[in-house]
């Protein structure tokens, strides 16, 4: 059997009906497939989707194998986190957010938060077992930074969607009604979030949140990677917009207001509505 290096099946036991496109192995052990940016026909898109799904199946199987062989990890029952897949291609949000930014943001920034979060958790686990209180307390800021980064970015990827898949489509149903009640209109909510986002000094996030106790929608900002819950234990994030410079600099440079204006074209209101309906039930 001719073995083609670039088209090798990553996991021999999974029979793939379709030939794989070229891939390469990433430093953290995952796989990255070359994806097309534009000019995708529907069949090609479905093909890519299928391949991505198969890829995550393959990597999940390899991961399970790896985990089974390290009994130590299992006996300690310490969950490690891994980079969630994007439900769309890196280039799918153009021209609002460039493919270059999406790739760096996902593969470098988010991955780094996860790597450091896992490291901090392991150190915390050790410190707790040893009863080393000063290390436990010292690690809190690393956990907040990196864990917060993981939480926030995981939400962010779901907050975005390509225009073809409903990105930018205004919310209907109960969330749409709640926005009108709390802010007057969708436009004024957007204006408020843009103003708060632009005024935020340094790095942080601007959020649309639900205050579960007061049963109303709120616009909040958090600094650095603080999750929304640090502003109030009853706050649930519906939508978060990353205003760290890495989220827009390569494309918008210093003009953060332009980024904020354009990002709404790819905001996934469907996800926000789902969360709202679930949390306000």
């Amino acid at each position: 059997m001719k073995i083609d290096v670039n088209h090798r099946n990553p996991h021999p036991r999974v029979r793939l009906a379709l030939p794989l496109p070229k891939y390469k192995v990433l430093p953290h052990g995952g796989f990255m497939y070359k994806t097309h940016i534009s000019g995708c026909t529907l069949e090609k898109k479905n093909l890519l989707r299928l391949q991505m799904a198969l890829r995550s199946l393959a990597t999940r199987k390899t991961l399970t194998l790896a985990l089974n062989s390290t009994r130590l990890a299992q006996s300690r029952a310490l969950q490690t986190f891994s980079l969630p897949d994007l439900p769309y291609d890196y280039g799918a949000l153009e021209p609002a957010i460039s493919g270059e930014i999406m790739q760096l943001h996902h593969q470098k920034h988010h991955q780094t938060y996860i790597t450091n979060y896992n490291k901090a958790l392991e150190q915390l686990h050790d410190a707790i077992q040893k009863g080393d209180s000063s290390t436990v307390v010292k690690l809190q800021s690393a956990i907040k930074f990196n864990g917060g980064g993981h939480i926030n970015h995981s939400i962010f990827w779901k907050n975005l969607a390509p225009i073809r898949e409903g990105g930018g489509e205004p919310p209907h149903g109960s969330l749409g009604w709640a926005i009108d009640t709390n802010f007057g209109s969708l436009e004024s909510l957007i204006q408020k979030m843009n103003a708060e986002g632009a005024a935020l000094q340094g790095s942080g996030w601007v959020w649309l949140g639900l205050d579960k106790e007061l049963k109303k929608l709120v616009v909040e900002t958090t600094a650095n990677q603080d999750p929304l819950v640090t502003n109030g234990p009853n706050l649930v994030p519906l939508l978060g917009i990353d205003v760290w410079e890495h989220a827009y600099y390569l494309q918008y440079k210093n003009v953060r207001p332009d980024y904020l204006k354009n990002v709404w074209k790819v905001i996934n209101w469907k996800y926000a509505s789902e969360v709202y309906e679930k949390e306000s039930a």
Partner: protein
Amino acid sequence: MAATTSMVTSLTFTIPSLGFRLPTRSYPCVKPQRRFVRKAASNVITATYELKAPPYPLNALEPHMSRETLEYHWGKHHRTYVENLNKQVVGTDLEGLSLEDIIIVTYNKGDILPAFNNAAQAWNHDFFWESMKPGGGGKPSGDLLDLIERDFGSFERFIEEFKSAAATQFGSGWAWLAYKANRLDVENAVNPWPSEKDKKLVIVKSPNAMNPLVWDYFPLLTIDVWEHAYYLDFQNQRPDYISVFMEKLVSWETVNTRLEKAKARAAEREMEEERRRKEEEEGKPTNEEDDDDDLEMYVDNDNDDSEAE
């Protein structure tokens, strides 16, 4: 704020001349410089702070810091801070103060006033451009190297610590080498028995616009670790940017000059505090010199060193 340029209201930030003395803060800079600006008409906005160019052309730091980065970082970010500062300051009590004074005043002991961010960032960026030079890097020499080796063990250890501070400043901010004189480790405290050991070099990091002036340190060197400082050239690789900065961009001559100035001011301040303590012992009610300062404010100063364009 009231749109008056009344000098009387400006005095709320200096020592009242009624014979009782508040504990004074001597700022790292010399006595507050007043820049008097004559307004031609009441609706003219006089730009009191100007965007100073870096001491080298924008492409001079290539390939370590690209011209594109300088164009955006200096030409857009820094310029915006200066312009917004001017807008915030015009017609308020802050008008006419030097940049360092505005920083101290708007820091307000932690209860930050609106102009702080723009003022501090304008100052920080001036300081940053001057901290670099084409063909920079290498090792310092003389007094500076001696102090570094005394306070950090070795030059290599200092580099390590500085790089670590810059890399672990989470989010936006700055890392600094500063000269700390006559102070305890508690902010705003004065050591009543100053000794030579108090004066030392320290590495500090600060978030967003904060800088060590507000802690009464003398900054010597800084690196900007806001993402806009390195994203175009290094993307997410902040540690690479920091290494290149230390190895290829730092102007140790400038740092040396700043150290000399810092030592001179620290000595000056020591002498002043000596003198004041002596006077308190002798029971003198007021200090003649301070009165002169205040009187100066009432007299129209004919030395118009305004920088009106």
